[in-house]
């Protein structure tokens, strides 16, 4: 009997401790990483260093690109100084654990928004449209997409999920290849192992510029995908803050800065997210 009484009391104490701990956690959740960032005085951003023109190392050994400049613009909006920022170079597979375990405040890595991904990281709204084009050898006879739907044609894809689905839909008769890097995918076409590769339009333009024996096919694969900044899920104020900054970049007071960055890397002005401002 005595031992039951002791166990009961121990249980009660344990339950109370658990309750107190639970209350403690729920309070801690209200503290946002945003406070930490502001106290720290700089952003920690995960980027790619091997995806021109979004994030890559230039001839001077400096990390440059569209994503790098966008992240600097966010630092400027946050601290008034585009250099209050630290870049963490990460591979495609590394970006998820880096976001989930808090190594980075957010990632800017031309990351397409998919429902599957959004179950594990929080995405801001779209900050640049992704669109896929086909790259082929300059001397290749292909004119329309139908020319590529042949059993003797091989299409080189990236491990990105939509590429395989799109290739199967558009070219059911062609053979498919899958690579885990853009350089391998590109070289496969250049060397004649594959006849066409799906690349992001800006990436394709970049590669063709430095490889005159290649060309981008005029017929576009019409899908548009959205590209978001991504971060650890479950921190509402943090997510809301970056989503708001993105909204201001693509259609608000930061649009002029954003527009200049866009033009610097892609040679044309972006459309304003406020559609009624694009009347030309």
């Amino acid at each position, binding site marked *: 009997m005595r031992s039951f009484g002791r166990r009961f009391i121990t249980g009660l104490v344990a339950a109370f401790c658990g309750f107190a701990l639970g209350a403690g956690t729920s309070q801690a959740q209200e503290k946002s990483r945003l406070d930490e960032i502001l106290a720290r005085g700089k952003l920690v951003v995960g980027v790619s260093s091997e995806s021109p023109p979004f994030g890559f190392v230039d001839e001077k050994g400096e990390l440059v690109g569209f994503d790098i400049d966008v992240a600097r613009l966010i630092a400027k909006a946050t601290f008034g100084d585009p250099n209050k920022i630290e870049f963490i170079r990460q591979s*495609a*597979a*590394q970006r*998820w*654990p880096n976001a*989930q375990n808090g190594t980075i405040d957010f990632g800017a890595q031309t990351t397409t928004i*998919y429902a*599957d*991904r959004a*179950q*594990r*990281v929080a995405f801001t709204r779209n900050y640049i449209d992704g669109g896929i084009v086909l790259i082929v050898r300059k001397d290749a006879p292909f004119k329309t997409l139908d020319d590529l739907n042949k059993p003797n044609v091989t299409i*080189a894809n*990236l*491990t*990105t*999920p939509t590429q*395989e689905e799109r290739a199967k839909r558009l070219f059911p008769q062609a053979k498919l*290849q*899958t*690579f*885990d890097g853009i350089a*391998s995918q590109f*070289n*496969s076409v250049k*060397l*004649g*192992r594959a006849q066409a590769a799906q690349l992001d339009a800006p990436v394709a333009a970049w590669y063709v510029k430095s490889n005159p024996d290649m060309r981008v096919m005029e017929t576009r694969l019409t899908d548009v995908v959205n590209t978001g900044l991504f971060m650890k899920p479950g921190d509402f104020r943090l997510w809301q803050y970056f989503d708001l900054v993105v909204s201001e970049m693509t259609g608000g007071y930061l649009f002029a800065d954003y527009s200049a960055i866009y033009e610097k890397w892609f040679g044309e002005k972006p459309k304003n997210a406020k559609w009624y401002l694009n009347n030309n």
Partner: protein
Amino acid sequence: MDWSQFGSFAARYLPQLWNGMLVTIAVAALAAPTAVAIGVVLTVPRVAGWRLLSGFVRAYIEVMRNTPLLVQMYLLFFGLPILGIFWDEITCGVLAVSLQHAAFLSELIRSGIAAVSPKQWEAGQAIGMRRWAVFRQIILPQAAIKVMAPVSNQLIVLVKDTSLVSAIGVLDLTLSGKVIIERSGASFEVFILVAALYLILTSVIGAGFRISEARFTRRLG
């Protein structure tokens, strides 16, 4: 990571990983016998004492052992088209794995044969046996017992090295895992599943080797 969802996550993606596993098994099943065959052929000139050929074999082994398999694979896959040869990615992958592991296997087999005391050669010849008969009936069985364990080891390394074929676009277990990571954003969960599947595969193969090793030793011992 939320482990309570790991079960349903695994259930959703395991079929896709299983398809990759079958490709890995196929690549290993093609590469392992090829590697052993080439390894044996490479050993012959050195055991037989053919000077010139031994020199070539030694050079081959040095080059193969001292350059990374991944680089050799890239050289085959992206280099052969320049010469007008368009072997597909599985052929290039199997060939690269086989060529490198043959070099290691040849070294193992040669050292196994060398480890049998030279006095046994002399003893065999002293009782009137021919050199080839001595080799076949006295040296080879003892050498075989000596090399079985290291050769099994090497073949398990070979199975794991097949993961490098993912770099040249063979949709094996590793590349299937990378495809799923791209879709789901779950690097850690996927790599755990991938590692578990490799572990199962190599454990089964390892157990198979141990059983056949025991049987073989009993029969010859």
